[in-house]
């Protein structure tokens, strides 16, 4: 072996000397041969000729010897790279287009891979994350597989189940008003209420201080809080002395006991602090058996050797037993369900992300096809060069290696630029989707680098293999002799390019159809009628801390004076208070009964979305009264047992009877009966969901169990409503200087927020589709131009023989449109097969929406026609005389 390395060294370093020696050897051999022949009686020139023939071509022998040497591969590779660089530099236009195309394709794919990898595939940063599961109640009707868990049910799970080494519960989203020291403006922030063992269950310890103990998680314990790293840095300047000090949340003092590590983001990145669940409101909720009462989530760590299925089956048994013990409460679930924690955190973004990744994959393939097309075209121009190289002893392997090096260089350059593109896209993605789960985990790492390298190699190999039939090959002599008039080879090459083009158009059509469907969904979503005025409406959240507003009269007075003040502002057309405005979300749907109806069978229940609203709310948002009237504005608290129902409520629960004058009883309203005084039009609780039955109670009513201290203020104005936000905040400040308003949004922004997912996916997919349409058009243009160049001569003859311009146009356009239309056919067929994977992302549009398919077909045909027409028109300008003289 050392000998071999020595040889390698000699061959590479002393290359010139080695070559010189080979040269000398062959020359001396030639002379010896010649002399031999001359002895046989031939003349000098005759002998030399014979000797040359016997030697068999000096250059070829040299090449064979070189091929036998050590280090041949490296040497070839280095030479190939130098040569490829020179060739590429000689045609900067081609090189730039190819690199740019690949950069876009590789960049987009890498960016989406980074996101998919970081969000969906990378394990959670917790201890032994494979054993963590999210646990749910299955709703009695079985419709909701992953429902929230009632505190009381959780307590029984914890007591009785054997499959988990620990079980933790959390209320993942709780709003707090934080009052900074020294009169800083109060701030509304998101926290999570957690059982003391949540952090140990996840296997995470605070970076500073300590986590909660079982003693902290008692109704009687002092209030404690653990801060997120970001919150600690932002509001306390990362000062360690915060440990043990108190902060003011909702007017209450909480002792800070710890700070979580900076990477910790559970349940998601927008949570800024954690408090024990058994304190305050949570204490009561922890005993409730109704899962809809509070949005509790449960996390469990499986014991070693216990499967998720077995552990969940046991929870189901426990839940069923509870159900049977509480048959009077029909909302107690009958079963439990589970899924891996990672799945629970990112399940909702899985489909869209994979769809986007698939779209970038298509884009990359299109980019590759385009570059291949360019290489094929160049292969045609370089046929003579290839023929000469092959005549000079270039073996097929060497020529192929040369070709591969060239496409590898192109694709490496494209990949390099693509990384920059990917970095920019990822940055933008993170900034555009701060709400996405695990968005904090998105980063380019080693695996992304491996992915890029693989993609680069894949692209190079693809472009090289798909375009190589045009390189070298048989008929070297023919290529050397043949003039550029050759038709047969040109046709073969054109056929290859047409096949590539058909594929490209097909992929483009699939992307266009996908983008079109999402775009239509978005349009549908944005144009859904929420059931109320959405133009010039401003909404904001008001949260009266229950610790301060202990008496109902305080709350009523505050709300009344607030509305009075706001309605007096110039430009205000109407103002109202409601638990949640249309489009803002579900916000609870308790069970109710109608005393006038016969009691429901045991174990059956009925529920509706609950809203408390002030009497002026309906008028302010233009929600029409179909029957009856609004709440009596003068009566309040116990004197106001009135209810209003929505149209679908009336239709569903009072079929064929007049609901006015009937009564509603709910647990939330302390089992008091409320008289129905009006029926209003339907509103949607989410823009993407159909209207559901809603029952309204007066915000001034005495609701016993749950004080309506949280409300959204909705203000309708005749002019630009955003200018009202400051005056309204001033009114709030005047009424209570410690109160912060949250989420100041216009109704359109609010809807935009709830339709953001769709609009985001649609925007990205449209961008990809437009890119690929452009690439396909460029590809088509290239092929047709090439054909025109090839056939200039023929077109000249045709015109000389009397062909009209229109004939030539038809001829050339037909050549280009054929592959485009074939591709369109493939694309439509492919889309029909693939778009059903999109159906979970669509809204109000079927995956086979004919309008989208027709529109895409028309668009593609039009673009293809233009791409063919431009070069075709050039063909008609061919002057027969010039064309025939051409050569």
């Amino acid at each position, binding site marked *: 072996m050392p*000998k*071999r390395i020595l*040889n390698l060294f000699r061959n590479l370093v002393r290359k010139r000397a080695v070559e010189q*020696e*080979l040269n*000398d*050897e*062959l020359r*001396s*051999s030639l*002379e*010896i*041969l010649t*002399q*031999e022949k001359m002895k046989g009686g031939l003349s000098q020139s005759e002998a030399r000729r*014979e000797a040359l*023939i*016997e*030697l*068999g*071509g000096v250059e*070829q*022998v040299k090449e*064979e*010897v070189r*091929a*036998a*040497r*050590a280090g041949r591969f490296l040497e070839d590779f280095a030479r190939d790279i130098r040569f490829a660089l020179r060739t590429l530099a000689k045609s900067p236009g081609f090189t730039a287009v190819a690199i740019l195309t690949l950069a876009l394709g590789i960049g987009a794919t890498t960016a989406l891979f980074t996101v998919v990898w970081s969000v969906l595939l990378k394990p959670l940063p917790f201890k032994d994350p494979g054993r963590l599961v999210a646990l749910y109640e299955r709703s009695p009707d079985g419709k909701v597989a992953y429902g929230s868990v009632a505190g009381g049910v959780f307590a029984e799970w914890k007591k009785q189940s054997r499959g988990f080494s620990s079980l933790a519960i959390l209320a993942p989203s709780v709003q707090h008003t934080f009052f900074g020291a020294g009169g800083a403006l109060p701030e509304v922030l998101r926290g999570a209420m957690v059982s003391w063992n949540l952090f140990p269950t996840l296997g995470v310890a605070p970076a500073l201080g300590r986590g909660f103990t079982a003693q902290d998680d008692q109704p009687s314990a002092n209030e404690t809080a653990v801060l997120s790293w970001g919150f600690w840095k932002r509001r306390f300047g990362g000062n360690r002395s915060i440990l043990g000090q108190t902060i003011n949340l909702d007017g209450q003092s909480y002792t800070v006991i710890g700070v979580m590590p900076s990477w910790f983001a559970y349940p998601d990145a927008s949570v800024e602090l954690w408090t024990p669940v058994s304190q305050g409101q949570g204490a009561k909720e922890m005993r409730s058996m109704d899962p809809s009462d509070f949005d509790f989530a449960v996390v469990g760590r499986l014991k070693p050797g216990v499967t998720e299925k077995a552990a969940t089956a046991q929870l189901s048994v426990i839940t069923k037993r509870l159900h049977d013990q509480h048959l009077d409460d029909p909302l107690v679930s009958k079963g439990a369900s589970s899924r891996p924690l990672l799945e629970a955190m990112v399940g909702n973004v899985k489909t869209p992300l994979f769809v986007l990744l698939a779209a970038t994959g298509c884009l990359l393939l299109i980019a590759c096809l385009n570059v291949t097309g360019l290489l094929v075209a160049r292969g045609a121009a370089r046929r003579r060069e290839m023929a000469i190289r092959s005549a000079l002893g270039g073996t097929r392997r060497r020529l192929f290696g040369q070709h591969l090096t060239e496409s590898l260089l192109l694709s490496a350059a494209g990949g390099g630029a693509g990384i920059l593109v990917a970095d920019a896209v990822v940055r933008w993605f993170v900034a555009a989707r701060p709400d996405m789960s695990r968005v904090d985990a998105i980063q380019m790492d080693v695996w992304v680098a491996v992915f890029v390298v693989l993609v680069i190699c894949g692209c190079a190999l693809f472009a090289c293999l798909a375009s190589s039939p045009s390189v070298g090959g048989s008929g070297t002599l023919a290529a050397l002799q043949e003039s550029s008039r050759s038709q047969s080879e040109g046709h073969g090459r054109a056929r290859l390019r047409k096949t590539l083009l058909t594929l490209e158009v097909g992929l483009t059509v699939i992307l266009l159809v996908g983008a079109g469907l999402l775009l239509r969904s978005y349009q549908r979503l944005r144009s859904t009628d929420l059931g109320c005025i959405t133009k010039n409406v401003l909404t904001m959240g008001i949260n009266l801390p229950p610790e301060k507003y202990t008496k109902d009269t305080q709350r009523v007075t505050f709300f009344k004076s607030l509305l009075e003040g706001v309605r007096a502002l110039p430009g205000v057309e109407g103002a109202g208070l409601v638990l949640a405005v249309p489009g803002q979300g579900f916000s609870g749907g308790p069970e109710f009964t109608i005393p006038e109806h016969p009691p429901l069978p045991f174990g059956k229940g009925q529920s509706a979305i609950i809203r408390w609203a002030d009497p002026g709310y309906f008028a302010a948002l233009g929600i029409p009264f179909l029957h009856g009237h609004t709440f009596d504005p003068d009566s309040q608290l116990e004197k106001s047992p009135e209810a209003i129902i929505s149209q679908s409520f009336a239709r569903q629960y009072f079929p064929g009877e007049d609901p006015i004058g009937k009564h509603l009883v709910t647990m939330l309203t302390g089992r008091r009966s409320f008289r129905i005084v009006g029926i209003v039009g339907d509103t949607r609780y989410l823009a993407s969901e159909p209207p559901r039955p809603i029952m309204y109670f007066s915000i001034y009513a005495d609701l016993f169990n749950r004080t309506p201290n949280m409300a959204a203020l909705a203000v309708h104005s005749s002019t630009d409503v955003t200018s009202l936000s400051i005056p309204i905040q001033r009114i709030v400040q005047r009424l209570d200087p410690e109160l912060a308003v949250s989420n100041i949004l216009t109704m359109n922004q609010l809807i935009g927020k709830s339709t953001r997912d769709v609009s985001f996916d649609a925007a990205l997919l449209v961008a990809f589709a437009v890119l690929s349409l452009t690439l396909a058009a460029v590809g088509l243009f290239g092929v047709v131009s090439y054909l025109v160049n090839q056939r200039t001569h023929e077109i000249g003859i045709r015109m000389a023989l009397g062909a009209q311009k229109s004939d030539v146009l038809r001829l050339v356009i037909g050549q280009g449109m054929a592959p485009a239309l074939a591709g369109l056919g493939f694309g439509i067929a492919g889309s029909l097969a693939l778009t059903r994977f999109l159906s979970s992302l669509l809204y109000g549009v079927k995956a086979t929406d004919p309008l989208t398919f027709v529109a895409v077909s028309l668009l593609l045909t039009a673009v293809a026609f233009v791409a063919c027409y431009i070069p075709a028109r050039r063909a008609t300008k061919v002057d027969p005389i010039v064309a025939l003289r051409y050569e």
Partner: protein
Amino acid sequence: MAQKRTDLLRGTLDLLVLKALSLEPLHGVAISRRITQITQGAFQVSFGSLFPSLHRMEEKGWVEAEWRSSDHNRRAKYYRLTRAGRTQLKVEERQWNQVVKIMAAAVQSS
């Protein structure tokens, strides 16, 4: 001159070259001539195969080369067997004999 070429079995060329060099150092053309001679004209090795084979064996250390004057007073590159080359020749001869024996037996058995 008719280019009559009999295809050499793979690996046979190396054996023939080693054999040709076993008596005395020779230059390329002479090796070719010697092979034709010892095979009674059956094999005419093309230089396109001979020179790569020589260079490969030189790298493997089986032959050594030096420049010296030929019989006709011309400088030529002479190849000589090394000790490793002689060992290799023995190995290849043994292998070849084995192949011949096996092939002969195989052909006669049918």
